[in-house]
């Protein structure tokens, strides 16, 4: 009898160990593929980022020389100066310049995994109208520049779910979505925290929302230039 119990215990242990072993081997086999992929991606990303930094430096240098020409010309005539000031103003309005100032940073993320029900109901990607509403709210509070995950929000910015990610300015992204807005921090904050507003609704749906006020931040210019194909502008 004692022996039988002993064998039973041994068999259970054996079974457990076997199961663990199987589990571990299966996980690590996947893990190897993943970690190789991740290593590859990380190095590619590093390269791409270096290239981007270099290109931004090149672009800044070019723009600096352009501004120099403009200011040279502006020194010679008052009219040219007025013109170049006006050009700078509209460049800023079109989102072609970096801007700095105080503002808010809103980070929107999917609910924690244990609070997600189904694929669609609690996924920001399929509830992107909240992003539109948050941007509308920020605009109502007088935001002067907005970016979404580093993409400048312009007149031509679309927010569209494509498969399992969102396309913004043609760039695909997944939550968390970081929205930056420059403006009066007090107004921006209160419009976001308005009871019954978009953020309130999102919190009720368990979305993770983080609002931070920032004294000084930078919002990048838009990187694409826009050309009209169908519209003909006239004064």
């Amino acid at each position, binding site marked *: 009898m004692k022996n039988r119990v002993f064998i039973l215990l041994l068999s259970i*242990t054996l079974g457990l160990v076997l199961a663990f072993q199987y589990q571990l081997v299966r996980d690590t086999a996947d893990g190897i593929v993943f970690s190789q992929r991740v290593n590859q991606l990380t190095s590619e990303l590093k390269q791409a980022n270096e290239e981007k930094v270099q290109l931004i430096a090149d672009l800044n240098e070019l723009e600096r020389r352009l501004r120099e020409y403009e200011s040279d010309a502006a020194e010679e005539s008052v009219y040219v100066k007025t013109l170049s000031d006006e050009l700078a103003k509209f460049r800023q309005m079109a989102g072609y310049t970096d801007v700095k100032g105080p503002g808010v940073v809103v980070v929107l993320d999917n609910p924690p995994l244990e609070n997600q029900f189904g694929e669609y109901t609690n996924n920001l990607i399929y509830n992107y109208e909240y992003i539109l509403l948050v941007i509308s709210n920020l605009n109502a509070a007088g935001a002067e520049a907005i970016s979404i995950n580093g993409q400048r929000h312009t007149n*031509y910015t679309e927010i*569209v779910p494509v498969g399992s990610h969102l396309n913004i300015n043609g760039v695909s992204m997944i939550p968390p979505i970081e929205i930056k807005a420059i403006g009066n921090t007090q107004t921006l904050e209160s419009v976001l925290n308005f009871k019954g507003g978009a953020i309130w609704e999102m919190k009720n749906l368990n979305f993770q929302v983080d609002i931070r006020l920032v004294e000084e931040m930078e919002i990048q210019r838009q990187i694409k230039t826009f050309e009209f194909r169908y519209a003909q502008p006239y004064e």
Partner: protein
Amino acid sequence: MRFDKKANILILALLIGLLLSLQMKNDAKTYAFININTVATLSNELDATKKDIVGLKALIRSSGNELNRYEMLKDNDEDMQAFLRDEIFKTKAVAGYTNVIGEGILVRLADNLEETQRNINFDLVHDVDIAMILNDLINSGAEAISINGKRILSKTEIICIGPLIRINGEGVGAPFIIKAIGNKDQLFAALNAPHTYAYNLRESYGLEIETMKSDFILIPKYSD
């Protein structure tokens, strides 16, 4: 019989020892445990950076061209002025501060006025409906949009203020007339293809949405 049992136990014990040692050897230190989200995040980031690089290269090309033109023009004040005026006009147009004309669509969007016996909210046009429709239009390549004569820019708010919707600081009421310039067929499809947002509003909620293509749409400039 007794011998058999001992042999059984021996074999089992050996097996356990073997497996235990394997288990220990299989210490997972050498493998990083990575979930699929890390891969997705990384590849998305990479994708975004690559797109940025393409955009930056195009910008550098155009800035280089601009610089060349400046160098040619710098001695001649009049040419310089003409060049600047041209640039201002182009930038102004992109920023939405000029009137524009072109092919596109006209949309009439109105509340469901029939007696439906259901929650009144299902019968009304809400701010989010308009925001979604505008977003769909932009996604289909709309180059300029206006609602009831108000130009829609990135800084435009579309906010419910009771019976009206606030657009560019002013209240606008139903029916909403949306004008958009772009490829008229694509814009038409953005609101009429099955299961688009506008299609669902019309078919499921009974809101009044009429779309009309036109070769001649005028959209006014933004005014404060």
